[in-house]
Structure formats: structure tokens, C-alpha cells
């Protein structure tokens, strides 16, 4: 309490370092400009009614993606600072950041990129397309879906708040290993901010996982058997099963660290019998599956993209499904390869090493299947296909270096080196992020009703691709030369500087790619009338989402489609043209969930609780917790949570869509 009051009045001043000051100014300035702009354009009511309180998964998906892209800018800026530091802090010069600031920056970079960029893009995509792909009107629990989103947003808010209130973040690395992250060695509030922003966002992820599993299992269109689902849905199942199995471990582990720091327990302390290695085991029992949580949906995107743009059925559907199942299972028996150097002994290391190498088999199956899908197809080289081809190069590179490090003896040499850093960036950028970008470009017209500018999209891809190679190939080399990760300074005689400068240039090129992406969005919106998707099927697609109008109406499908096989829409187009022609079907009333802000309030109360615990303000924590419970009770006792769109209104909306198609 005595700590809290003086710091709550956030005294923003440059003495925390120029960059922290700049970041604070950006957050506050950006916030003020945004509020002013919305007020000036009189968009508050629109924002509130159409977006913030919406339970439509497509709207929620867009909000996820917008927030994830904002966080991408912040995480990217962190990356830029790290590259600038390592390019300049050599010999007598000590660069632009102090050691402590540098540590906070790399911790924030990792945390933000994984939890608030990659996870946000992932859930954004799930929300946008899973109901559409399985021919459903909604997710299983629309209210819980909105709550999940707001918990994610709450976590993101908390991580940004750490800059304003308290002026510090964890300086421990993105997984906050104890004993460094214990109170004794990290006495400030930085680690607590880390714990609670992840805890709140993590609970949101877990709820989302449950929600989408029930959606896929229980709400598929009539006739759609499991082995007839689009492959993106299978990859989502793999990812969701991992979320369901792995995120409770994260919740428990973070709770134990919080108990250590807040109540003086001794789970992971170095005295009183605590065991820090227990933490490292637990966090990676979550952390390794997390990698596959991120990358499996990217595989799913590519499976859809490659089949569509090759105008061919996906090669080896069943083997793709089994590969996903295999990866899902194996990803739980490899966690120890993150710390071969712990000293668990040769047999233990050998087991986990072999398991890790085995994962390369199903992954290889997938890569070959995609290539065979392209073989003798009519390939259209659109932007999503470029992302795919780039992915094949980077992902194979990352996979090969991964198998290399699966050998414990080699891992002992490159453990904690920049070689490792380069490896996992290859997998996450060259794997997951490329996949998400491909998916966003591919499904954009379904959500917004117009396609993105191709030329700028290509420019963005080429910047990302070359920038990526420039930024990370030098890190492989540096790692081999012995450069460890998280260095804020090194000796000039090592001769590393040139490579660090190249890596820095690489990040700038990626930054240029991001600029092209922003430009692409702006130009596409400005020229949207030229690129309207009136057909609802701009790519000659194969799956159900392309059978409805673009942008997809709030109820997705006026008439729930019947499915008789794989690539349901493709088959309909080819074999039963009369079904896709302009006959007037029989419409019925459609039940849709009403808007509600309760999910936002629940997440707000949860954030208040987290914030209060960070600052040890117990009365405020009690209010936050009570708030969550009371708000949940309010929702439970609310009866009329849905409304009906009458059949006549559905017919009117559909007729308008048909007119657009004919125009």
C-alpha cells in the first residue's frame, strides 16, 4: 500500500531512460489521439454497438487480429531496439540501452510476440473461419467467446500498463526462470506484471480452447463426418487439444510462482527445499506444446491455400490428419529437449532426443503432401501461395536445424546460443507467422467483402522473406561462433559486429514489409469498390465458407448446408450446378445471440484483481474478485440472451446479396 500510492500517480519523466520514456509517450499519445479521433468522427456508439459488445465470432475475430497487429508493432519495436543495441554495443561503446533495460526489452519482446501476437492471430483466425468452415452459424458458447477475447485484451492492457505504472517489466527472459524470478533476485513488480498478464490471457485461451472443441465436435453441418472436415479444422482440433492439455499446466505453474512471490511459499526458491528445476520442467511441459499450438493452424491454412490455388484436391488427406494427430501426441513427450544441459543423464536425454527427431517424420509428410498437391495442378501464384512457398524454404531450414539440436551432444554446444534463437524464430516466423499472413489474405474477402491489393501484398512478402533471411541467417553463424543469447555487450576482438549489423539491416527490411502491409490495408480500403467480392467465391474455393455471400452475414448461412463429402462446396459447384444457382430456398427464423458488454466487464474485474495483487492492495483485489463472481451471477440469471431474425428479414438480406452478385 505504501508503495502503491506514490507510483500510482504515474510520474512520467525521462529519467527512466529515453526509450521507456518514448514508449510511455507513444502509449499515452496514441491513446489520446485514438480517443480524439473516435470522438471527432462520432463513432463511439458505432464502436460500442457493432464491435465491442458484439458476440458475432467474425467481429470478435477481427478484434483479436487488430489487437494482435498493434502488439506486433510493439514487439517489433522491441526487436528493433535489441538489434540496435547489439549492433552498437561493442568494445568501448555500450550502446543505447542499459543492461537492465535491455533485459526488460528482450523479456517483453518474447512475451508479447508469443502470448499477444501469435496467440491473438491464432484465435482471430479460429473465430473468423471455423464456424464458416464447418457450416455452422456460431460457436458453441458465444458469451464465453467474448469473455475469452476480453481476457486476452485485459492481459495485453496489463502488460502495457507496466510501462506507465511502476515503469518496469520483468528482466528475466520470457519464461521467467526461478530463482532469478523469485522475490529475492527480482524484488520489483516487473515479474508480477508478467505473471498476471499471462495468467489472465491464459485463462482466456483455455476457455477459447474448450469453446472451439465443443463447436467442432457438436456443431458441424449435417452430414459432415470427421474425415470430411476441411483440413484447417483438423489442424485446429490438434491445436485446441494441446491448449486443453497444456494451458492448465501454465495456470498452475504461474500460480505457484505467484504464491512464492506473494505469500512467501517455497516451490521454486533456492532455499527452504524449493526446486527451481521443477519450474523449468513444468513451464516447458506447457511451452513445448505451445509451439505446436501456434504452428498447427498455420499448417491448416496452407492445406486450404495450396489446394485452392492449385485447383486440386489436397494430396493425402488421411495422412495429413494422422500427421496432425501424431504431432499432437509427440509434442507432449519432447519438453526436456529445452534443457538437455540440466544433467538428467544420458538415457533420459537420449529418449527425449529421439522423440524430438521423430516429430520431423509427420512434419515431413505434410510438406511432401503440399508439394504433391501442387504437382500437376493449375497453380495460381497469389500472395497466399507466395507465403506458402516462402514457408517451405524457411520451415525446412528451421526443421533441419531443429533435428540438429535434438542430438543432445550438439545441443550441449549450442544451448542458449544465438543458433537456438535463430532456430525458433525460423519456426515461429517462417512457420506460424507466414501461415497466419497467408490465412488473413486468403479469408479477408469473406469477412470484409473485398480482396486485398495483390501488388502491395507481394512487396510485403518479399520484404518479409528477404528481411527474415538477412536477420536470422547471421544469427545461426554467430551462434556457431559462440555468441550466447541475451548479450547486451561483447568484445570487439570477437569480430561479431559485422554479422550483428547485417541482422539489424534484416530487421529494418522486415520493418519495411510491415510498412507495405499497413499500406496494403489502407490502399485496399480506399480502392475497395474496385475489388469488391460480389460472387462470395473470389478464389474458386473448395470449402463451405465460399458458398455464402461476402461479407458473410451475421448468421453465416441462411440455410444450413448439407454435406456429402470432402471439399463440399467444390463438389456442389462441379456436380450439382442447379444447387448453387439462383433458386429461392425456404428460409426460416434464425436465432442470434444479443450483444452484451458483460464479458468485457468480467475481464475488467479480473484485470483489477491482477493489478491489485501486483501492488499488494488487498481491498482492491477483493473488489475485483467479487466483481467477477457477481458479474457471472448476473449473466447466469439473465434470461433473454438471444433474438430472432425473422425469415422475411433473412430473405431480404439474401436477395440483396444475390443482387450484388448479379450486378
Amino acid at each position, binding site marked *: 500500500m505504501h508503495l502503491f500510492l506514490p507510483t500510482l500517480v504515474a510520474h512520467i519523466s525521462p529519467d527512466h531512460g529515453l526509450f521507456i520514456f518514448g514508449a510511455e509517450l507513444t502509449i499515452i499519445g496514441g491513446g489520446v489521439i485514438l480517443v480524439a479521433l473516435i470522438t471527432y468522427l462520432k463513432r463511439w456508439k458505432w464502436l460500442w454497438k457493432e464491435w465491442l459488445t458484439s458476440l458475432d465470432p467474425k467481429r470478435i475475430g477481427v478484434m483479436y487480429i487488430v489487437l494482435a497487429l498493434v502488439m506486433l508493432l510493439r514487439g517489433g519495436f522491441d526487436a528493433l531496439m535489441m538489434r540496435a543495441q547489439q549492433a552498437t554495443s561493442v568494445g568501448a561503446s555500450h550502446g543505447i540501452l542499459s543492461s537492465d533495460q535491455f533485459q526488460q526489452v528482450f523479456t517483453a519482446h518474447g512475451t508479447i510476440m508469443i502470448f499477444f501476437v501469435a496467440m491473438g492471430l491464432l484465435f482471430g483466425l479460429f473465430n473468423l473461419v471455423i464456424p464458416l468452415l464447418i457450416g455452422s452459424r456460431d460457436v458453441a458458447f458465444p458469451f464465453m467467446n467474448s469473455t475469452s477475447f476480453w481476457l486476452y485484451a485485459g492481459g495485453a492492457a496489463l502488460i502495457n500498463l507496466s510501462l506507465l505504472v511502476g515503469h518496469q517489466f520483468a528482466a528475466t527472459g520470457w519464461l521467467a526462470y526461478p530463482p532469478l524470478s523469485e522475490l529475492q533476485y527480482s524484488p520489483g513488480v516487473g515479474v508480477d506484471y508478467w505473471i498476471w498478464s499471462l495468467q489472465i490471457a491464459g485463462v482466456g485461451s483455455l476457455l477459447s480452447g474448450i469453446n472451439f*472443441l465443443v463447436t467442432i465436435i457438436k456443431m458441424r453441418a449435417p452430414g459432415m463426418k470427421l474425415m470430411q472436415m476441411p483440413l484447417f479444422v483438423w489442424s485446429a482440433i490438434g491445436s485446441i487439444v494441446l491448449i486443453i492439455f497444456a494451458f492448465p499446466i501454465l495456470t498452475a505453474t504461474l500460480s505457484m510462482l505467484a*504464491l512464492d512471490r506473494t505469500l512467501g511459499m517455497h*516451490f521454486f526458491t533456492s532455499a*527452504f527445499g524449493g526446486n527451481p528445476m521443477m519450474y523449468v520442467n513444468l513451464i516447458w511441459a506447457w511451452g513445448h506444446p505451445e509451439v505446436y499450438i501456434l504452428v498447427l493452424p498455420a499448417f491448416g491454412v496452407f492445406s486450404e491455400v495450396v489446394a485452392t490455388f492449385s485447383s486440386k484436391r489436397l494430396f493425402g488427406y488421411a495422412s495429413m490428419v494422422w500427421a496432425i494427430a501424431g504431432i499432437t501426441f509427440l509434442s507432449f513427450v519432447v519438453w526436456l529437449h529445452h534443457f538437455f544441459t540440466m544433467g538428467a543423464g544420458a538415457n533420459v536425454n537420449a529418449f527425449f532426443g529421439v522423440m524430438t527427431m521423430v516429430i520431423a517424420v509427420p512434419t515431413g509428410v505434410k510438406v511432401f503432401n503440399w508439394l504433391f498437391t501442387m504437382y500437376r495442378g493449375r497453380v495460381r501464384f497469389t500472395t497466399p501461395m507466395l507465403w506458402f512457398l516462402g514457408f517451405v524454404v524457411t520451415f525446412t531450414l528451421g526443421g533441419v536445424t531443429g533435428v540438429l539440436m535434438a542430438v543432445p551432444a550438439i545441443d550441449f554446444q549450442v544451448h542458449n546460443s544465438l543458433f537456438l534463437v535463430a532456430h525458433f524464430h525460423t519456426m515461429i516466423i517462417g512457420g506460424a507467422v507466414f501461415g497466419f499472413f497467408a490465412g488473413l489474405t486468403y479469408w479477408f474477402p469473406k469477412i470484409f467483402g473485398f480482396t486485398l491489393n495483390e501488388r502491395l501484398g507481394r512487396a510485403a512478402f518479399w520484404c518479409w522473406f528477404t528481411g527474415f533471411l538477412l536477420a536470422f541467417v547471421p544469427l545461426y553463424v554467430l551462434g556457431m561462433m559462440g555468441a550466447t543469447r541475451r548479450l547486451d555487450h561483447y568484445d570487439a576482438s570477437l569480430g561479431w559486429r559485422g554479422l550483428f549489423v547485417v541482422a539489424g539491416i534484416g530487421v529494418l527490411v522486415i520493418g519495411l514489409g510491415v510498412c507495405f502491409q499497413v499500406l496494403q490495408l489502407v490502399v485496399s480500403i480506399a480502392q475497395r469498390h474496385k475489388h469488391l467480392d460480389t460472387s462470395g467465391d473470389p478464389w474458386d474455393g473448395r470449402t463451405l465458407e465460399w458458398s455464402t455471400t461476402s461479407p458473410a452475414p451475421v448468421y453465416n448461412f441462411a440455410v444450413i448446408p448439407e454435406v456429402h463429402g470432402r471439399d463440399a462446396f467444390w463438389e456442389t459447384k462441379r456436380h450439382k450446378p442447379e444447387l448453387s444457382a439462383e433458386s429461392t430456398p425456404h428460409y426460416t427464423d434464425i*436465432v442470434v445471440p444479443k450483444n452484451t458488454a458483460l464479458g468485457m466487464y468480467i475481464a475488467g474485474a479480473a484485470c483489477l484483481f491482477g493489478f491489485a495483487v501486483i501492488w499488494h492492495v488487498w481491498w482492491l483485489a477483493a473488489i475485483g474478485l467479487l466483481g467477477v463472481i457477481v458479474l457471472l451471477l448476473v449473466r447466469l440469471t439473465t434470461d433473454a440472451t438471444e433474438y430472432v431474425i425473422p425469415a422475411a428479414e433473412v430473405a431480404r438480406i439474401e436477395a440483396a446479396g444475390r443482387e450484388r452478385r448479379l450486378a
Partner: protein
Amino acid sequence: MKSVAVSPEIQQEVYAKTTFGFWVYIMTDCILFATLFATFAVLHGNTFGGPGGKELFSLPFVLAETLILLTSSFTCGLALLAMHRAAKQQVMFWLLVTFVLGALFLALELHEFTNLVHEGNSWRRSAFLSSFFTLVGTHGLHITAGLLWIAVLGVRLVRRGFSAATVRGLTLFSLFWHFLDVVWIFIFTIVYLLGAVSI
């Protein structure tokens, strides 16, 4: 915009989705407890010179706790059977008994915790005690949530009778309560019984 008179088919669908979703949630809770059990298993010997399970636990006391919780699971089952007969008074009665037994269990657990703390054996004493308090306390927190849930269900039952939502709620609650029972059996065995014989 008019509100919805929900058809029985839609209710059936909601029931199926919610029940399945709740099973998945219980699954995640299983993993949460499994993590805490694993931590306890690793840390249970790390008493740092302080007392271990053998010195601290009183088996007759824990047996009493166990019997109370098991009985509450039985009465919860009776409430559900009464629900299927649509006997509102009986449901209320058995819910009340379940609540009282649950509260009694919680009171005993808190009594045990307070005693331990007063004797200087709080969670700050050793890694063993940290993991003990956390594992058993997490179960206690779940019981507390369950008690709150019974209260809400009771109020709902009085106000609205057997609405579809109440029936759904009662079914899910019984799943939850039996699940906590199973977790307790593991706590009883692994923490208390094994604790009393070893170390």
C-alpha cells in the same frame, strides 16, 4: 427484435453442448490438479529440517473429513434422483444437506490449516508445506465455489422451479461435486495416507 421462445430441440442441443463442454472443463481441471500432485510428489520430502507428514497429520481427523465429503456426494446423488422424479421439495432438502456437509468439510479443513499455522508450520516453513497447502487448499477453493453454486441453484429452484436451465445446472453441479470427491480420494491417499507411513 423480439425475444425467443426456445423450442425443446434447441434446449436439447444446448444441453448436449453444455454437458460436453463441462466434461472438457473437468478434464482441464484434472490437469491442473495433476500438476499440483506432481509438484507435491517432487517436493514432499523437502521439509528443510521442519516436520514432515508423519508428525503433522492426524489420520482419524482426515478420515472424518473424508467420510463427510463422501456422504455429501451421496446426498448430491439423491438430489439428482429426486430431480428426475421432479420432486422439488426433496431436491431442495438434499441440496441443503449437501451444502451443510460441504460447509462442515470446509470448516474442518480450515481448522486443520489454522492449527498448522499456529504451531508455526505455515506454508512459509518449507517447500513440502508450500505444496501441501497449495494442493489441499486448491481443492478447498473448489469446494467453496461448489457451495456458492449450490446456493445459486437453490435460489433458482425456489424462484423458477425446474426450468431447463436449472435442470442443466443441477446436472453439471453433480458432475463437479463428484469430481471433487474423486480428487479428494487422491489427496487422502497420496498426501495423508502415504504421508503418514513414509518419512
